């Protein structure tokens, strides 16, 4: 199976081996501190769309957070990938991990649809009569999917024969 071979290759790299055998806690700590720091941007942006946070305006929040969320994505994504490298052949078969990947793809799809279809409407509507319904649905979905990602992450440790 091709996936298994790729996972084995990742695990056998210098980095995968070093993390697994010696410094497994370092990417874990980056992953969690990154999640805590940058998760705030996701939450605040979604709460603003849902009208639970009212200041500053959405366009301001979105503009301010764009580079910050990219930085967060790099820190959390890279550390996550390094964790995966260190334990790839077990993780890819882990149901919690599989759910996490699916949910992250749904997060990405939701963000892409929001950017291409709803974002401009929000910027226009902000000046007149508040946030459009589609944007609120997208924000609620984002919070829900991210919660799912956290759930799946915790499940990783509790399913599968080796975990």
């Amino acid at each position, binding site marked *: 199976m091709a996936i298994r071979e790729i996972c084995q290759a990742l695990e056998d790299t210098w980095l995968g081996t070093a993390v697994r055998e010696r410094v497994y806690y370092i990417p*874990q700590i980056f992953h969690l*501190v990154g*999640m*805590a720091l940058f998760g*705030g941007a996701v939450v*605040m942006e979604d709460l603003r769309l849902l009208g639970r946070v009212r*200041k500053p305006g959405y366009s301001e929040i979105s503009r301010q957070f764009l580079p910050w969320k990219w930085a967060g994505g790099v820190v959390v994504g890279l550390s996550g990938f390094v964790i995966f490298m260190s334990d790839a052949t077990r993780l890819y078969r882990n149901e919690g991990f599989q759910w996490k990947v699916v949910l992250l793809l749904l997060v990405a799809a939701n963000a892409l649809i929001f950017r291409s279809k709803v974002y401009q409407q929000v910027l226009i509507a902000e000046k007149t009569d508040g946030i459009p319904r589609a944007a609120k649905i997208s924000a609620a979905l984002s919070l829900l999917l991210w919660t799912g990602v956290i759930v799946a992450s915790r499940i990783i440790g509790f399913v599968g024969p080796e975990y």
Partner: protein
Amino acid sequence: MPLFKLLDWWGETPVAHAMNSAVWVFPAVEVLHMIGIVLLVGLAAIIDLRLLGVRFTGTPVPALSSELAPWTTTGFVLVLITGPLLLSTDPDRYYLSWEFRFKMACLALVILFDFALHSRVRAGGGSPAMQRLAGWVSLILWCCVVAAGRAIGVLKTAILFN
């Protein structure tokens, strides 16, 4: 030792038995703990970035702070309930863990610092230098709390008494 006795008692309460009653209870409470962390630390970090002059410089500090306050409070209540619940599952292990002690020390410091200075700066007081100081101290301490928290789960050191 009184603290050790208190933890021992906490580990024998019905709450602790409920936490240990099934394997899924601990991760379920962990999920709530993490949601609390993102609300508390994630939104506190945004206020700290404002204090540092990195983000939202066009919004006054008190306005941003009061806008996010209900959510950081929600996060704080969540971690304050779920933390002791997680602790109750195995108080001895946490008591003997360096990471746990470091986390509690940083948590105590950040709470004290909040009452002493950060809350006043959030309300709009303090010089720009004071604001930057408050932002840095809070940001660094919160990062230490989260880092130590993750380390409890992965490092698992134990203090040995000979």
